[in-house]
């Protein structure tokens, strides 16, 4: 395992410290915890709290700031944060308007956030939540735990965050957040695994000509393995799965070509070239594109494509002002 670290035990702590030291104008860390909140609490608005295991940087703490999150709760690498950490975050950023939890659909995340929610409700805090489950690689059925939440989560943060910033009430914010969840689909692939520092071993091993298709964001193997193909064909496959899951034809969309951490921007741009061509061909109008590392898997070499079907409100909120370490929109 080759990493720029000091010791596997200190990875989370030093990373969080490095983050708040880089962005003191945006962020503040709660004492004795890894919870990150806005440097200046904004009262009188619904507060957004998200989080999950670490290893997805800049998600989630990088999106704390005006127009996006009020708090992020980072767990250990790839491990959902504990209920008391989530509760601490809620307690810190809560306002009379209430708190919206943005949860990615993993058994651990859902359980830990819900336990915190129960604690908060016990204290009389107005709570609501949405669960992001955008990964079309995973079969969805009433029998399974359902789809994973992956990069589409960033759209929820952006759009619900903008709505909250405008002073909407908890139910309005929850509604638009849910609409994003309902209208975003994603899927990813990887050609190189990542290594969880505490673990020291890659999540899977691939031959020089192999890739994992349908990967999640925790370094786990995907749904299946294939021979690497020219990336346009890979893009075709991902878009096919995404487009067959939701009718996008004729609509306006936001696109995210998300890097897994080790993929050079060069390749993400090449990917976007083809994404744009395919969507144009299918009469899907791209309103805004995000290309870069938004929801990573440490140093994994992989990418995901997310497509968000927009309505006028979502479109306006997507373009609204945001000022966070990892995403700034002048608006």
């Amino acid at each position, binding site marked *: 395992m080759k990493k720029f670290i000091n010791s596997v035990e200190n990875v989370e702590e030093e990373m969080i410290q490095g983050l708040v030291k880089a962005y003191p104008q945006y962020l503040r860390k709660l004492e004795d915890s890894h919870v990150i909140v806005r440097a200046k609490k904004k009262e009188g608005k619904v507060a957004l709290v998200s989080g999950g295991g670490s290893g997805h940087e800049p998600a989630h703490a990088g999106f704390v700031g005006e127009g996006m999150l009020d708090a992020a709760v980072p767990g250990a690498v790839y*491990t959902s944060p504990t209920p*008391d950490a989530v509760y601490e975050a809620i307690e810190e950023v809560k306002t009379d308007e209430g708190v919206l939890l943005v949860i990615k659909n993993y*058994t*651990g995340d859902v359980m*830990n956030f819900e*336990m915190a929610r129960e604690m908060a409700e016990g204290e009389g805090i107005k709570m609501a939540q949405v669960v992001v489950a955008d990964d079309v690689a995973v079969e969805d059925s009433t*029998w399974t735990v359902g789809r994973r939440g992956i990069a589409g989560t960033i759209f929820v943060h952006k759009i619900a965050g903008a709505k909250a910033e405008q002073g909407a009430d908890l139910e309005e914010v929850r509604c638009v957040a849910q609409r994003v969840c309902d209208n975003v689909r994603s899927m990813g692939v990887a050609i190189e695994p990542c290594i969880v520092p*505490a673990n020291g071993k890659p999540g899977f091993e691939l031959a020089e000509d192999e890739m994992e298709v349908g990967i*999640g964001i925790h370094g786990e193997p995907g749904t299946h393995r294939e021979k690497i193909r020219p990336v346009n064909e890979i893009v075709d496959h991902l878009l096919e799965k995404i487009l067959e899951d939701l009718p996008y034809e004729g609509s306006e969309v936001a696109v995210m070509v998300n890097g897994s951490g080790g993929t050079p921007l060069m390749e993400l741009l090449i990917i976007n070239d083809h994404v744009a061509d395919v969507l144009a061909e299918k009469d899907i109008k791209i309103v805004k594109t995000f290309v870069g590392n938004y929801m990573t898997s440490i140093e994994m070499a992989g990418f995901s494509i997310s497509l968000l079907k927009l309505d006028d409100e979502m479109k306006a909120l997507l373009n609204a002002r945001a000022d966070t370490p990892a995403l700034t929109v002048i608006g």
Partner: protein
Amino acid sequence: MDFDTLMSVICQMQKNIAENREYLSDLDRAIGDGDHGINMDRGFREVMKKLEGSSINTPADLLRTVGMTLAFKVGGAAGPLYGTAFMKASEAVKGKETVSLDDLLPMLDRAIEGIQLRGKAVRGEKTMLDALIPAKEALDQALAEGLAGDDALDAMIKAAEEGAEYTKTIIATKGRASYVGERSIGHMDPGAASSCLLLNAIKTHA
């Protein structure tokens, strides 16, 4: 089993988990995210820290503290699940000074109930339940057949281990392993494996 023995069981659980940290994580790496051993180990270390020098002196308080610690300090899926399990097990021995083999059945029963309440899984979904439910049923039967002490525990552990083995043959539909679909076949569920390690600790000190 008096309070001190129960405390020894908890310590043994910690040891079993610590010794199998790599093993559990390796199982999890095959079909999940490779942290189950890390999570469980971190959890039981926290438990030990919490118990060290504490004034807890009843079985119910002990189990409740273990549960609270696992639920609130571990994270991941296993934290809340095992946490709830211990908290629920604690309810089964409320007010008691000692814990007998006869108490184990309701404890397991409540624990499983708690896991199912939290995790909404049933038997056959390739989770810890596939070790715990057969274990409970085997214990139930052993006690009904009048088997005593070690023999009943042996039956329970054997059933848990068979259950864990069985998870190799099925597709996961709950937890992280469900995402790899058919590829989960052939691999043991890490939570089922950790459940066996925990149950084994009971026997060592019974």
